[in-house]
């Protein structure tokens, strides 16, 4: 083909077609026809190839496993595990799972981000448009937009029909009783794992293992019933709150036990927290004072000293103790608050709460027996209940005569109130030390776990002393008409900067009712109660913890089925 000779249009035409310029037309056309046919054949081959490629691609897609959509995998990890309901002994719901919809987006599926933002912010006003835009424009396959929507918001957004926007139902723990049962029920973290109280205990009972195995998804798990009675719990909390206000106390706590089974019917520790807002549990004052705090309980402890003396068989109600003069040991003086300055019988020591008298009882018993008795009562061990929160008792490093004497009236030995309550119950129920529990238990089961710590006769005498103390002793203001309350008061000086302070007190009252046949035991404490006009300047237990306990018992005894005897 020669481009050099360019004579005009026919030549230009020749330029496109290779042809045999010298040949005759007939040959040229035949040649051209053959070439053209092969070209069409080639075109057909190209098309055949193209359709084969399409068919091949279709076949690979047909046999390809459909991968689960991205959000499913992500969502499975994100959804919180289901937990069983928690109820009180009467079936009142204390904790439950509610299914809340959470809003997510798959940004790559959204084709109109502006529309999505406009509609979503209209439905959920607290969504931030800027943040939303950043999320929806991101390259991520899955983003949470809002955890825990209301059902109305879910319905509204659902009806927008936005592609790439969806919901996942998540389990959210809810505590209908809120603060009321916070310390016992405990709470969970964002993943619905128990981190405090019975919630944590439930996990250790095997729920965590179920979760790991993926078996705890359904909501049909058997509910967990607690020993708590929210009515009792409420009365106790209400009265302690009132008392804290009246006496400007900084804190307060109380526990009610069934003396025959060790079941905890109520446990209050104030200030408390809202388990629906777990962050509030982190406040330092919100600890569970009943199980996780240890205190020198002061004169309340005398009940154990007196019980020890009676149980030894060496003392009885006629035994006398010389309380005419204070005891001086080294630089330390032991004196009586309600000083009688005379020789006191054993019941008088108890009802007048004589430090001198109990110190002499301890001396009479000797260090070894005193120590052994404290061991017997379980006061050397960390209390074991279902609640994970517990504290080791503070025991004297060296048990001297002086230590023995101060311990006899509740100083120099700190125990958790739950331990003192369990010990108190043993003194009332015929001498059986029963570990307290938050899970229901029958009397037979309790007896199998119990340990005889004092003789039944000692228990009988202690009941008499408790009742006597309310009738004529330091606990007169605890008289709840008809319920035969008995108890022992305690006013401990708190240790401030390593010294006992006589201005900061911890008052307590260990009460049992009805004393003729004890069923329930209550320990109530107030931290740093102040004097008021009504108390005539007194801040001791008999003026605050005792009357508060009386009011509580007046309210709870009928609920607990204790029949009043009115004479």
């Amino acid at each position, binding site marked *: 083909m020669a481009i050099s000779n360019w004579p005009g249009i026919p030549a*230009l035409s020749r330029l496109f077609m290779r042809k045999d310029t010298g040949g005759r037309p007939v040959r040229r056309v035949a040649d*051209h026809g053959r070439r053209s046919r092969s070209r069409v054949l080639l*075109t057909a081959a190209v*098309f055949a190839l193209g*359709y084969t490629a399409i*068919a091949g691609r279709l076949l690979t897609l047909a046999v390809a496993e459909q991968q689960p959509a991205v959000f499913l995998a992500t969502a499975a990890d994100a959804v919180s595990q289901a937990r069983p309901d928690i109820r009180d002994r009467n079936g009142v719901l204390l904790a439950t799972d509610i299914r809340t919809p959470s809003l997510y987006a798959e940004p790559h599926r959204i084709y109109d981000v502006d529309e999505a933002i406009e509609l979503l912010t209209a439905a959920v006003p607290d969504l931030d448009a800027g943040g939303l835009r950043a999320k929806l424009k991101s390259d991520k396959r899955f983003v949470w937009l809002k955890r825990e929507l209301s059902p109305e918001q879910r319905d509204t957004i659902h009806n927008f029909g936005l592609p790439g926007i969806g919901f996942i139902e998540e389990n959210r723990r809810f505590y209908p009783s809120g603060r009321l049962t916070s310390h016992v029920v405990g709470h969970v973290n964002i993943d619905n794992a128990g981190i405090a109280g019975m919630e944590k205990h439930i996990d250790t009972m095997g729920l965590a293992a179920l979760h790991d195995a993926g078996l705890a998804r359904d909501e049909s798990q058997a509910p967990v019933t607690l020993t708590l009675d929210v009515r009792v719990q409420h009365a106790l909390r209400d009265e302690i709150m009132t008392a804290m206000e009246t006496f400007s106390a900084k804190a307060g706590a109380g526990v009610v036990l069934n003396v025959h089974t060790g079941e905890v019917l109520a446990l209050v520790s104030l200030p408390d927290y809202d388990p629906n807002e777990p962050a509030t549990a982190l406040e330092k004052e919100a600890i569970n004072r009943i199980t996780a705090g240890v205190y020198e309980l002061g004169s309340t402890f005398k009940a154990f000293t007196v019980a020890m003396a009676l149980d030894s068989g060496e003392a009885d109600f006629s035994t006398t103790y010389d309380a005419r003069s204070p005891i001086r040991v080294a630089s330390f003086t032991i004196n009586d608050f309600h000083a009688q300055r005379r020789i006191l019988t054993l019941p008088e020591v108890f009802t007048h709460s004589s430090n001198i008298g109990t110190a002499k009882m301890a001396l009479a018993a000797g260090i070894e027996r005193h120590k052994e008795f404290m061991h017997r009562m379980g006061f050397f061990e960390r209390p074991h209940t279902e609640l994970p929160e517990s504290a080791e008792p503070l025991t004297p490093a060296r048990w001297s005569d002086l230590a023995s004497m101060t311990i006899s009236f509740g100083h120099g030995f700190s125990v958790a109130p739950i331990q003192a309550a369990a010990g108190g119950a043993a003194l009332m129920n015929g001498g059986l030390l029963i570990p307290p529990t938050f899970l229901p238990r029958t009397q037979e089961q309790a007896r199998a776990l119990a340990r005889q710590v004092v003789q039944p006769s000692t228990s009988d005498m202690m009941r008499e002393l408790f009742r006597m103390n309310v009738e004529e002793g330091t606990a007169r203001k605890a008289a709840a008409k008809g319920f035969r309350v008995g108890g022992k008061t305690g006013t401990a000086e708190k240790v401030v900067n390593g010294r006992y302070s006589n201005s900061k007190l911890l008052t307590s009252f260990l009460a049992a009712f009805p004393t003729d046949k004890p069923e329930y035991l209550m320990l109530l404490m107030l931290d740093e109660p102040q004097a008021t006009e009504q108390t005539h300047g007194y801040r001791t237990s008999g003026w605050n913890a005792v009357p508060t306990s009386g009011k509580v018992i007046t309210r709870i005894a009928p609920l607990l089925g204790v029949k009043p005897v009115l004479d």
Partner: protein
Amino acid sequence: MFARTDRGPLATWWWTVDKPMLAAIIALMFGGLVLSLAGSPPVADKLGLDPFHFVLRHAVFLAAALCVLLATSLLDRRAIRRVAIGVFAVGIVLMVATLFAGFEIKGARRWLNLGAFALQPSEFVKPAFAVIIAWLFSEAERRPDMPAHIIAVGLVGLVVGLLVLQPDFGQTMLIVLVWGAVFFAAGMSWRWIVGLGGLGVGGIVAAYAMVPHVRSRIDRFLNPEAHDTYQTDTAIEAFLRGGWLGQGPGEGTVKRALPDSHTDFVFAVAAEEFGIIVCLIIVALFSFVVLRGLMRAVNEDDDFARLAVTGLVALFGIQSLINMAVNLSLMPAKGMTLPFISYGGSSLLSLAYGMGMVLALTRRRPRGEARRSPAGRVVPAQPR
């Protein structure tokens, strides 16, 4: 139906037309109507129209298209050329008119408003163009003194120019490819093939460099991770969800997410609802029509018929391949309808016209049948 001895035009048509190809084309047309039931209701819903708005229109256009197909297939070769020249001329005039009077959709002026019907003149220009180019090349062979090639180049320039002004890069590409196919079949030398191929690649590179949306589409195809590939991802999901047998008619969900479920992505919608087996049947029908048409062309003695069939079938085949390849993420996204299946009045009628001409040109003729010269004189057939 017709007696063998019947020499009337209908009887002759019946005995000479390529019936398997006609059956395949009609199967595609009715398949398109069925798939329209799946693909178009969500679109109608989105536009606030009656759910079956597009289905009804599709049916009406289908009836019209069937008439066009059959009527065109009755034409003889001379009539085909004449009609093509007429259609082409009117089409060009209307294309010029769209630049001034057309209405704009998504940034392009491609449509003329004719009351109830929006006409896309470029659709009708395509088959007429293929036929005219084929005629020019065949004439160039027979009558070297005629400036056929120059005219052919001029026509390509004219059509491409008008399309770029709209702008419509899909149709531009199609026109150039069809022109190339006819040119190639006409016996273009390899030097030219390489040269024009280079020019084509250069054109794509230039479009990539200069036209932002072309660049973004190609970028998205080459690097799907870094870009928004919502449409193609959704389409692939539709194939995966469909599996062999599909989710069942009306059970598709992807069609609600795909913006062009009744046109550009109808293949994916079909896959989700009717399954990949149905898709394979559609592919088989397309390849049957294309390959049978081209094989007929190979065996065709008449240059014009061979080139025209090649051009028309190439137009049909390229369009179907591009559409399916885009649906399957084998190509960058390009708005192109699936012939006969996709919704679109202009597209349906134009395809019926084009394939009607293919049927007319592939009708069996006695080998020795007289051939009319352009002047109308009866001349002996070319010796072989």
